[in-house]
């Protein structure tokens, strides 16, 4: 197993490993590199769906996504397809399923149909984005909480009735604006546009201003890396300390990627 860092603050490509047949030592090494680099990229991993799931289970329990489509026999796999109907998906900076009380600790995404050009995924190190905030902004956001709500993104195509039912089942979650990573202790920005409705306990204008300022920090290319996909590329990222965005730049080409999502702990 060899490690090739991608940028200064986030990402490493791992070579000389077969994810369909890993041993305990390799899983331990992957865990360590994952904490260090936050995003790991593996190429040419021709996994079956079952192997994708088995690989994911090495890192924790897998979630079943309540809104996203999945292949019939594999409820743990989220199918993310962009085609004529949905011309793009996930093209806003976010961390996965932050509207849950216990959002995902990590996601493992696999390329199945990849456009010849376009459809890259960008990743941002939210701890470095936080480090670079003005001290005055840090002070203002340090002890605040934000409200995360699935309906901002997944409620758009639901009927009123369906949305109300789902909101009962998945009530808005309250998470710290700046989250502390439970394993490394790093502090990172944990707000995003697709799911955060507002910051709690401050005026609406102030909330919008702070959310935009935090998003701006995430958008800095100096804290990012950009991954080009191939069929059977696997990327795993740490949702506790990384945000990501898919590029909406490949239509009318098709893109199909599949994700397993590892359940995490309540953010602190």
């Amino acid at each position: 197993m060899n490690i090739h860092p991608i940028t200064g603050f986030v990402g490493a490509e791992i070579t000389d490993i077969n994810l369909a047949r890993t041993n305990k030592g390799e899983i331990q090494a992957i865990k360590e590199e994952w904490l260090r680099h936050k995003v790991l990229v593996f190429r040419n991993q021709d996994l079956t769906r079952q192997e994708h799931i088995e690989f994911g289970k090495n890192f924790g329990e897998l979630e079943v996504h309540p809104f996203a489509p999945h292949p019939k026999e594999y409820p743990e796999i989220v199918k993310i397809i962009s085609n004529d109907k949905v011309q793009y998906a996930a093209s806003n900076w976010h961390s996965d399923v932050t509207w849950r009380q216990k959002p995902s600790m990590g996601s493992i995404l696999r390329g199945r149909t990849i456009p010849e050009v376009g459809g890259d995924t960008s990743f941002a190190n939210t701890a470095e984005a936080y480090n670079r905030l003005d001290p005055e902004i840090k002070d203002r956001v340090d002890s605040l909480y934000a409200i995360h709500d699935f309906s901002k993104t997944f409620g758009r195509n639901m009927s009123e009735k369906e949305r109300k039912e789902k909101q009962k089942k998945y009530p808005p979650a309250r998470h710290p604006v700046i989250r502390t990573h439970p394993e490394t202790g790093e502090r990172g920005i944990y707000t995003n546009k697709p799911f955060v409705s507002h910051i709690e306990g401050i005026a609406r204008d102030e909330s919008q201003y702070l959310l935009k300022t935090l998003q701006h920090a995430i958008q800095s290319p100096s804290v990012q890396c950009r991954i080009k996909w191939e069929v059977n590329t696997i990327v795993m990222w740490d949702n506790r300390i990384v945000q990501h965005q898919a590029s909406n730049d490949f239509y009318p080409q098709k893109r199909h990627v599949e994700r397993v999502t590892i359940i995490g702990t309540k953010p602190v």
Partner: protein
Amino acid sequence: MKVVRLNNFFGAEVQGIDLRNLSTKAIDDLQRLWLEHKVLVLRNQSLTSEEHVNFSKHFGNLEIHPFANKHVDYQEIIVLESGGSTKKTHYSATDWHSDVTYREKPPMGSILRGVVVPEVGGDTCFANAVEAYSRLDLETKNAVSELTATHDWFKKNHHVLDKKDIESTRKKYPLVSHPVIRTHPETREKAIFTNNFFTAHIDGVDENRSNTLLRRLENAIRDPSIQIRVKWDETTIVLWDNRCVQHTGTDDFLPAHRRMERTTILGDRPF
């Protein structure tokens, strides 16, 4: 000559040429490819500084930069260097911009060469300002279509000048107004032409409105969907078209040493 596209909208890697030894046809091809792809990445090119200057002259007259550090032997080359033993612990070109927009006639293009490249980090990102414009909402498009903005070197460059030179420099490089949305003189495409480095304000609207519009334009440029990211090595040359592309460096390589050399091709007055 083989062309590999880097993105659906712009950017291409051109393979199988030697920039030290170009036929007239190869130069024509490069010019055409540059217009078509906006950013060209050329790998495995071992140029000296002199060869870099000579290659650049195929595309127009070169600018002598008013403020930047220049190469000891070639005043057409500006040196962007930090980290290592340079005593420059910061790298400042880390926001989206087009080069030298405070000039009445800003450069049409820039040609950057990796000279000392850190093992990891220091990528340059490029944004397609045409695609960014086309994705603006209609209300914003309409609001900015006829506006001009004032560009000023002072914001970014005053710290390199002695106080006594500021006034004479102001006279030499007075404030200049450019259209907020620029039309490319050759392709006729429309592109966002404001940036945080040099744009002081939008003309003829109040400060709030100017800030709001500039932020919307900046946000359009900051979208990864209209960007590419280029990793450098010491044999890489990148050409970009300043009339329709913005770019930013990244400072994630520090404290490692990074040295780049740039030539800049003179352009026309934006319209």
